[in-house]
């Protein structure tokens, strides 16, 4: 069964030099789309990546990543809206690049769809009432 997951990969320093993504594509037949990468040799690297392929390949790839010492976590957990704080002003909608934040009309309420979110983080400082939270 074909699956598609957005995951956050945490690379320990020693693994940063290895072509991990190349192996994911070539050895596990996963199509990849890198959404964000922040890696330096001195510190842990973080990559937000969308991986698509067969479910079985995805499971084997997860084992490979774990063996490399790479921690994975689903992206869904990374940006959250605090519904008690949100005032539905709409300021976040203007800066969201993936339409995870949209306005429902005619109610004008702000809708947050976590599975569309690419965790770019723009909404976090843009929200006037600090309702968007970034969790890594």
């Amino acid at each position: 069964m074909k699956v598609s997951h957005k995951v956050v990969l945490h690379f320990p320093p020693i693994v940063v030099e290895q072509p991990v993504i190349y192996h994911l594509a070539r050895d596990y037949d996963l199509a990849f789309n890198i959404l964000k990468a922040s890696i330096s040799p001195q510190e842990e690297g973080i990559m937000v990546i969308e991986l698509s392929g067969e479910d079985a390949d995805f499971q084997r790839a997860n084992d490979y990543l774990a063996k490399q010492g790479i921690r994975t976590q689903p992206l869904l957990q990374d940006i959250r809206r605090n519904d008690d704080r949100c005032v539905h002003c709409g300021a976040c909608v203007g800066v969201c690049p993936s339409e995870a934040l949209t306005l429902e009309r005619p109610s004008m309420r702000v809708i947050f769809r976590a599975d569309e979110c690419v965790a770019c983080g723009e909404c976090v400082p843009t929200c006037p009432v600090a309702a968007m939270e970034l969790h890594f």
Partner: protein
Amino acid sequence: MAKTLEEINQKIRRGQVVVVTAEEMVDVVAEKGPKKAAQDIDVVTTGTFGAMCSSGMMINLGHSRPRIKFGGGQVRLNRVPAYAGLAAVDVYLGATALPDEDPRNAVFPGEFRYGGAHVIEDLVAGRRVLLEATTYGTDCYPRRQISTWITLSEVNEAYLFNPRNSYQNYNVAVNKSDRTIYTYMGTLKPRLGCANYCSAGQLSPLLNDPTYRTVGIGTRIFLGGGLGYVVWQGTQHSPAAKRNERDIPVAGAGTLAVVGDLKQMSARWLRGGSFRGYGTTLMVGLGLPIPVLDEDVAAQTGVSDADIQAPVIDYSHTYPNREPDVITRVSYAELKTGSIQVDGKTIPTTPLSSYPLAREIAGTVKDWIASGKFELSGAVAPLPGAESGMMAGPMPDHAPDKTE
């Protein structure tokens, strides 16, 4: 047959008042016409919830032992400087004040996470706030330094005193330059990448009484979740702004100065706000009832988003340089579709004030009136109208001469 305010208030006391929100009134007037609407409807309620920078609280801390006099010294609340140039323990804290140590835009764009507005929210929410002061001593006020936690319930007066709230219409902000800019109208993408607007439109208080027939000094309002009053025109009140054929301003026009007891307000309706690259502000919930005295008032409260136009203005060059250019005008109906046409380009629109909360405020005032809890107060003095010719002018510009 016109109604009087007293007749309407009698109906409120008897539980017989017919009250609708300004949003509901759009349909009432559209279906029945203003004359029948004026007969059937007694009160129309309005609401708005958005950033209102010219807001702050007046607070009397009570006297210490020995006494201390803040005026001429320095006062901070949770590290945010407050204004102390009044009597001994009278202090004013404005929404946009920042702690000395806030880096502001040193690393651009700054986040401005905590300012005067957040202190106000903390106090209204029941949280404690640190009061610190240093000052010179006098024989009658010998103490020169103090540091104490305070909460809202422990102080004497604490009232919200907002010199400019409830703007009657406002700009639509765009950015013509090549780089993203960070403004009080939000983050604006380059090359007309987005258009940001800030108004409750057909729910907005002053857009439902555009010539200030009923709203005036003394009007009782919903403010921050409690009761408040209009006390004066707000700063930059510009009733002589250009108006359309319905007498509705096509740019920012009237404003209100409002007061209310902070102790009966709620943090749901008073929120500290941070605008990236700009600063802090207070997001205020405000609403007011309009007595439907006659057909003209009914017609005006029937205003819809399609009847209200706002000016699209470039915030990268035009606004900062105080130039008058207006790119085009669009209605709030167009803005709320999610995109507008500017210079042949389709631009996505983003609101900055909360229409859902504005709707809730208008609904709350409606419930208060229907349940007999809230009677309308008439204005004791009018706000300056268009016939006054009043328009906000520029700052005096007379550079001091070295030879003087």
